[in-house]
């Protein structure tokens, strides 16, 4: 009998799968490459989760059964999750060079300000409107929460972004819709049917450089169910 934990995670405490895992672990396997084995760019895209849904559907049957490719994907995904690697993926040397210049400059500017206004009021408190939100990551604008209908998806622009990638997930985590756009709005095609009352999640990735993407938070929405008369 299954149950759910406070985080709505399906739990089966009386159904440990260790024994299945033990047998699965000891399957003998073949690692001989086949003509269907994945190219490096597909392995990389799979590992970073950026493979286009149509291509992912095409390669899934192979990777589900090919130890060689699955091992490569898992290995690269592990490497990407290694904090030392992840740090280098996020901070490019270009950024590092900028930091080397900008940080001392910023420190000097703060020092100058402090020296120039020794009597200035330094008490904390609100002074005018809050700063504008960071434009380094896209922010989903609509749909958010309960909406009457979804005809398009809109998000905030990101400075320097030349392309955006939108992904809509259903409640099971499956991809309902994925597309790329040069602008901050994309029409939802009629072929995508959203079930009223069902929760969906969506996110936007903004390409901000040759090798840089900035990802929004996952945002939930649901389409209102039609009123009963």
């Amino acid at each position, binding site marked *: 009998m299954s149950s759910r934990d406070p985080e709505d995670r399906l739990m089966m405490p009386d159904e440990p799968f260790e024994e299945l895992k033990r047998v699965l672990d000891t399957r003998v396997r073949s690692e001989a490459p086949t003509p269907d084995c994945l190219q490096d760019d597909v392995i990389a895209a799979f590992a970073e989760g950026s493979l286009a849904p149509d291509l992912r559907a095409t390669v899934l049957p192979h990777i589900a059964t090919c130890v060689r490719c699955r091992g490569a994907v898992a290995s690269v995904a592990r490497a990407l999750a290694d904090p030392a690697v992840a740090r280098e993926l996020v901070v*490019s040397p270009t950024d590092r060079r900028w930091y080397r210049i900008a940080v001392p400059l910023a420190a000097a500017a703060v020092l100058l300000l402090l020296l120039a206004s020794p009597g200035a009021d330094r008490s904390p408190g609100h002074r005018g409107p809050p700063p504008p939100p960071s434009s380094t990551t896209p922010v989903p604008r609509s749909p958010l929460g309960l909406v009457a209908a979804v005809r398009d998806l809109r998000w905030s622009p990101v400075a320097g972004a030349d392309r955006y990638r939108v992904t809509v997930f259903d409640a099971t985590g499956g991809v309902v819709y994925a597309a790329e756009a040069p602008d901050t709005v994309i029409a939802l095609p009629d072929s995508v049917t959203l079930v009223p009352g069902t929760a969906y999640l969506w996110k936007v990735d903004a390409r901000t450089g040759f090798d840089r993407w900035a990802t929004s938070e996952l945002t939930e929405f649901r389409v209102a169910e039609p009123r009963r008369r």
Partner: protein
Amino acid sequence: MDDWVAELQRDRFDAAWDLFLDRYRRLIFAAIRHYAQDYDDVMDVFARACEALRADDLRRLRSWVEQPEHRARFSTWLVTVVRHLTVDWFRHRDGRRRLSVVAEGLPPLRRRIFELVFLDRRSHIEAYELIHAGEAPTLTFREFLSELRATYHAVSTGRRGQVLRDLAPASEAVEDLPADPAGPSATGVAEQSRLLERALAMLTPDDRLIVELYVLEELPAETVAKVLGLANAKAVYNRSYRALSLVREQLERAGVRREDL
């Protein structure tokens, strides 16, 4: 456009290489260090990676740049290439001496399993046969599996072990195993593996991959969700548990009970 790409497109290969290396040296090192920690190993693999990336006027880099559309980020592709080069380097090197250092701290049985599986690249069944026929005639297959799992765990723990995980052996398919590999217990497990493969084959490819990556490869649920384009880790938990329930049902229909496993 990045400066190294611009230089590459002008066929200024030396300049492109210098700029590329300036930009990605730390990432290459980080990727290599993920798989190997020994300083000499890291430096040797780095040299090999540079040699491979620079060969034929930066052929690998040019092939990536010239692709009309890129499926992955360049840096992820680079980590993938470095991973392959690192694993190949360890495979082709006279590695027995250095890899044996890893086994020194293991109990005798696990050290023997390590030698057979990781160094001699024997299949699990073969390793059992050799140990059973040699130094441990009373070792049951079930006990061997327990020791095998502990050996995998020991060599995969820590950064040094990452490359060892990738060096796990290539073995023959279940169907190619001898009919009676090592007594009734091993045959039983081989039969269970065959049934399990059939049960797994009944899952959808994405559910099967969730099981393989989350349960077997032991990737964190968040990573599996990212790889498979699922919304979050919860989706991975739920789908893997449901998929494994289906697998168990299939096994029970085939007459395999939990206590038989």
